[in-house]
């Protein structure tokens, strides 16, 4: 062995084991090959996504020229942004409440709150449809008020995720820090702003990312709560795909993927990847 200048593999040196490397490679391949293909074929100069015919940007032009597609994209981003903001506020408050207070029926409240995570999306979608119909929720309002029903539906299933992340983050909080701040003269609000909030921040950012991506790609619930003039991106793609998968869809999807990657990168940069990792 020493003759070949090779050290024997220690029991925990998994990265030097061939079967482990191939396993990781295969996992990455299955995860990302479809995505990479989708992106590559968005530049394909052919109407069909089968054979590579040459490089072109014309489907990007086409996608941007497709007014209803652009509108759907803008709708999706608006809904995701609004849902994220409200989910983070509601979720943070709920998370702090569950961490901080003891009250009767607490476990029941916790269970009910995580219900939107557990309940099948299709059921939640139907329920939302019936709810908004029975409420006689106004339709045909000017933009962006016409998105209110979808946004409310999205907040419903997004905020429990934020609450869970924030709560688990708070579990690592040392209560003596809160007392120390008060001991130094800080009021309840100052303590929250200066001590609790900074501790919560990685959880808030992780929760916001979760909420944003969940909202952006939601199809089922959106499908049930959207009207003819409130099409979101996933719903629009679905309707386009029903005829044929054109490179136009590929182009639009690529833009969306890049957009989410950039947003995630910015969020991670803001906090530092370490902070996010610590949350879980």
């Amino acid at each position, binding site marked *: 062995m020493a003759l070949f200048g090779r050290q024997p593999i220690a029991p925990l040196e998994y990265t030097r084991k061939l079967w482990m490397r191939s396993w990781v490679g295969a996992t990455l391949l299955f995860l990302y090959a479809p995505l990479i293909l989708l992106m590559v074929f968005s530049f394909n100069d052919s109407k069909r996504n089968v054979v590579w015919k040459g490089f072109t940007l014309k489907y990007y032009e086409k996608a941007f020229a497709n007014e209803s597609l652009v509108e759907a994209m803008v709708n999706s981003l608006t809904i995701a942004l609004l849902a994220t903001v409200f989910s983070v506020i509601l979720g943070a408050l709920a998370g702090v409440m569950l961490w901080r207070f003891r009250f009767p029926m607490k476990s029941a409240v916790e269970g009910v709150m995580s219900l939107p995570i557990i309940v099948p999306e299709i059921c939640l979608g139907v329920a939302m449809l019936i709810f908004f119909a029975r409420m006689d929720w106004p339709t045909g309002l000017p933009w962006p008020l016409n998105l209110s029903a979808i946004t409310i539906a999205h907040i419903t299933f997004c905020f429990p995720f934020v609450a869970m992340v924030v709560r688990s983050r708070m579990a690592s909080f040392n209560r*003596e820090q809160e007392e*120390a701040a008060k*001991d130094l*003269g800080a009021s309840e609000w100052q303590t929250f702003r200066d001590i609790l909030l900074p*501790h919560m921040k990685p959880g808030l950012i992780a929760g916001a990312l979760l909420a944003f991506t969940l909202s952006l790609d939601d199809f089922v619930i959106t499908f049930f709560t959207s009207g003819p003039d409130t099409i979101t991106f996933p719903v629009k793609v679905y309707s386009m795909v029903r005829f044929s998968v054109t490179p136009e869809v590929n182009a639009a999807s690529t833009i969306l993927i890049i957009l989410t990657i950039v947003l995630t990168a910015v969020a991670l940069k803001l906090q530092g990847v370490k902070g996010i990792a610590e949350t879980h």
Partner: protein
Amino acid sequence: MAEPIIQIRNVSKRYPGSPVAAVDDVSLDIMPGEFFVLLGPSGCGKTTLLRMIAGFEIPTSGTILIDGQDMAAVPPNKRPVNMVFQSYAVFPHMSVEQNVGYGLKIAGVRGDEASARVREALELVKLDGLGSRKPDQLSGGQRQRVALARSLVMRPKVLLLDEPLSALDAKLRAQMQFELSDLQDQVGITFITVTHDQDEALSMAGRIAVMNKGEVAQLASPSDLYEFPANRFVADFVGSVNLFEGKLTLDEPDRAAIDCPGLGKVYLGHGVTGPHGADVWVALRPEKIYLHVPGKGDAIRAAAKDAPEDHNLARGTIKGMSYLGDITLYEIKLDSGAMIRVSRPNLSRHDQEDFTWDDRVSMHWRADSPVVLLS
């Protein structure tokens, strides 16, 4: 006499659902500039009492006055006391300077005055030059200094310390005991420290209140606490002690005698003012017993003529010994069957070889060594 800085008047604390009081009718006066220690085993109520002074717990009954002012309606952030927490509770997202300056920022002290006071506080705890560090770049001892500086910068009337040294290693703890005492001399602020460590209490305190089951078992100076414990709990908790039950057979103003079935006849050079024939306990510290070879030691015994014949004498067999460097500790089975612990200083480098397992030994002690306890 000066007015006490803190007056605790009949304070009790009961938690709902608990049959016993965490703090039971405690009254204490703490003087300005004093180094006061609350000592006791875990669960004795010492931390609860400290937290009531800080305002984090509300007394069930009784009043706490700080500087003559009733604190009942004053929340923690408005009290003229500051606390150093057991976990230090240093804010992890702030630098050392920001930590120390936090209280000043809240109080509205800004600019040059704030930075001067922060610098002064950091110098006081010997952390100058580390102001821009984050807490995770500091050692445990340094973090504690940050917590100290953070409280001292507020110039409180009273500084409360909750088990301040419990998380430090032995060497650092010994060093911090001296530093805390020095610091207290320097700033002249009243310190109230909670600890379960008797060494810590004895070395730092001006006065110690020993607490047991929510009550103050004894309030005394360190040496009084050790040499004149008021009851068996204090005698046993502070230091190490041999306790023997006995009957009071003689009690006059200048002498007393107790007959202990376990230890033998004990003679004291002072009265105990207890009822004749009463059941009492004799407490004898291990270091106050002289150990010698039977026969040979009788010569030394003859030199200590402060007790009548047959008193303050015992014989036994060594059953265990542990060599601790500065002293050697012996476990001796007395002829009565009772066990007694004796410590012996190693005055020369061969002293520990004088006795070994199963040696017959005789012991004596002076008439002013035992303490008679009525409870």
